[in-house]
């Protein structure tokens, strides 16, 4: 496949692996977190871990929008969809995400809720146009990458005079979550951060640019390398991180220069800031309440805000106490350290956030890499 295979070349990968092996100091450990689910998926899908030296370990971060959505927001969506006049449009991978009491959108649909799987924001607009008598709600989720399409969708709905269309907004922000991982009360309790650097987001950074990470690198003294989602991008980014650590640097570097600039996509940023504003705090599954990490619609667009339109209430639900997602997302524990992993918590019946989508740390480990756990246990 042209323009993709070039970034998956085995020979170049071997060469990079050799250089990483040669430059990584055998006397120390390198623990790098890849923030994005896309990176987690690439690592697992291509078996990247097998090509890294034993003292370079990847920690899978919380950058999977489906995984971090808390049960309370799923509950809200289910309650909304159960209202007879509502048609809820969602992305397919949200359907199985567990709310509280084991309910999901998939089970709500089986009980008669009008829930439609869509592939794009435009599908939802089309459904709203075709059913002017229904209250059509789009379940918006995702990081900075998916926020601009939601903004465009709201503009379009306004232009088309769609009176019974609204958005249940769950958009979240990457830098705030990275901040939370490095400086949360949990971390203070644990007393140390087990992360030596970050592989920074690919698609998110095409929108926000590399600049927003600079303050993080500076404040916490951690190197950040923005990387593309192809496996060779990852290998190169890991090498760049190893070099920064070896040289005692903590800078923001851009491996993904073919798509990312320092300032990002201004046009998209403007669209987003016209329509959305910061929430004081937003709950992340596995991380808890993270200040200034979520977006909501501005007052001027209240008619498109499902939370206002249907006076939706959020009731916080505690995560399963045995679930180690919080510690796993911070690199303190591995999936295999969690009692629930692979026993009661599997991709078919996920308990914690990391098991929900194939991009989650636990699901990726279970689906693609669990043979390594047995190797570990045998050893």
């Amino acid at each position, binding site marked *: *496949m042209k323009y993709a295979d070039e970034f998956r070349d085995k020979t170049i990968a071997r060469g990079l692996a050799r250089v990483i092996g040669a430059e990584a100091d055998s006397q120390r450990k390198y623990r790098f977190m890849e923030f994005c689910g896309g990176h987690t998926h690439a690592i697992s899908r*291509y*078996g990247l871990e097998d090509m890294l030296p034993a003292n370079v370990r990847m920690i899978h971060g919380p950058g999977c929008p489906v995984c971090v959505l808390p049960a309370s927001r799923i509950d809200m969506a289910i309650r909304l969809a159960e209202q007879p006049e509502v048609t809820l449009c969602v992305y397919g991978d949200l359907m199985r995400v567990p709310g509280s009491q084991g309910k999901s959108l998939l089970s709500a649909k089986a009980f008669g809720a009008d829930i439609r799987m869509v*592939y794009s924001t435009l599908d939802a607009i089309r459904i709203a146009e075709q059913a002017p008598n229904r209250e059509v709600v789009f379940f918006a989720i995702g990081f900075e990458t998916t926020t601009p399409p939601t903004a465009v969708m709201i503009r379009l709905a306004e232009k088309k005079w769609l009176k019974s269309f609204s958005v249940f907004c769950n958009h979240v922000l990457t830098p705030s979550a990275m901040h939370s991982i490095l400086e949360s009360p949990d971390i203070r309790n644990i007393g140390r951060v087990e992360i030596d650097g970050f592989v920074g987001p690919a698609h998110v950074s095409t929108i926000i640019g590399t600049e927003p990470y600079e303050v993080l690198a500076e404040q916490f003294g951690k190197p950040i390398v923005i990387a593309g989602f192809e496996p060779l991008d990852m290998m190169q980014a890991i090498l760049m991180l190893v070099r920064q650590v070896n040289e005692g640097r903590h800078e923001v570097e851009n491996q993904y220069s073919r798509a990312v600039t320092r300032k990002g996509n201004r046009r998209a940023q403007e669209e987003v800031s016209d329509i959305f504003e910061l929430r004081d705090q937003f709950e992340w599954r596995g991380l808890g309440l993270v200040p200034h990490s979520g977006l909501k619609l501005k007052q001027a667009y209240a008619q498109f805000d499902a939370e206002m339109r249907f006076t939706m209430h959020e009731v916080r639900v505690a995560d399963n106490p045995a679930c180690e997602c919080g510690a796993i997302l911070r690199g303190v524990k591995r999936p295999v350290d969690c009692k629930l992993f692979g026993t009661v918590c599997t991709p*078919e019946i996920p308990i914690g956030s990391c098991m929900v989508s194939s991009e989650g740390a636990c699901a990726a480990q*279970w689906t693609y890499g*669990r*043979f390594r756990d047995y190797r570990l246990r045998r050893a």
Partner: protein
Amino acid sequence: MRAYQRKLDIKNGRVDLSHGAGGRAMAQLISGLFHEAFGNEWLARGNDQAAFDVGAGRMVMTTDGYVISPLFFPGGNIGSLAVHGTINDVAMGGARPLYLSASFIIEEGFRFSDLKTIADSMGEAARAAGVYIITGDTKVVERGKADGLFISTTGVGVLADGLDLSAEKARVGDRVLVSGSLGDHGTAIMSRRQNLAFETEIVSDSAALHDLVALMVAAGGSSIRVMRDPTRGGLAAMLNEIAHQSGLGFHLQEEAIPVKPAVAAACELLGLDPLHVANEGKLVAIVAPDMADAVLAAMKAHPLGCDAADIGEAVADNHQFVQMSTSFGGGRIVDWLSGEQLPRIC
């Protein structure tokens, strides 16, 4: 005196509830449309059952339901798919398929013209494969109670004495052979889904595999331990199934697995893994290592097996993992699909 009956208006007419009610309209639909398409001596006798002879050997029977959406896709339709799929399930046992039954659940309002196209392609697929659709059933349900048309089929065949293919016969060291490129059918269907439609030259691989199987059995005999056609859940589900049933693991080489560039690209776009995508004209055989090359050569000699490949081997593994060396140079598990990747693909 025979009562006058208006001819079926195939071009503009539609199925209504009377076509399932047991009266004249139903009789007319069956004789005018289905008998016409399937035409054989058993159907012509018009009994509620068909009596047939079978030769020596053990009988093989299978049953299958088809609820595909859309009904028409590049490379076939629900009718040809039902015939091919059922023939293949019989053939995977190493058997020679002989007879089929077909049961139709039709939604009120379904176009006669579409029904005729589908029935004709069933008849054509059956004739091409040398099998007969010898009995059937027709039901009509109210609008909204079924999505156009559902077809259920049963297939009967005979298995030569001495052949007994089954998953538990797989042994460590056995080779894994696949008859051609993976993921064509599922991708072709996806390309025609209303909310997804994309331009592609990908065509479903829907085909009857019994001739290919006959060549393989002639070449390999009982050194072919087990055969399956990787339909729903793709190669991944099929090999995990065999791993569980045989208590073995498998080790695959990603580079050896044939996937067409257009399929790989579509899967990339849709976030799918070709190893999870359905096939309708491919088979996987687990073959004793000493006979693997001979069976592979036999496969390559048949047009439906010209891209056949040896993609890996059975290994001892208490965890029954299907593992794969990736073309990038690492290792991974090839797991069952969790959840539903592509609803209603067959």
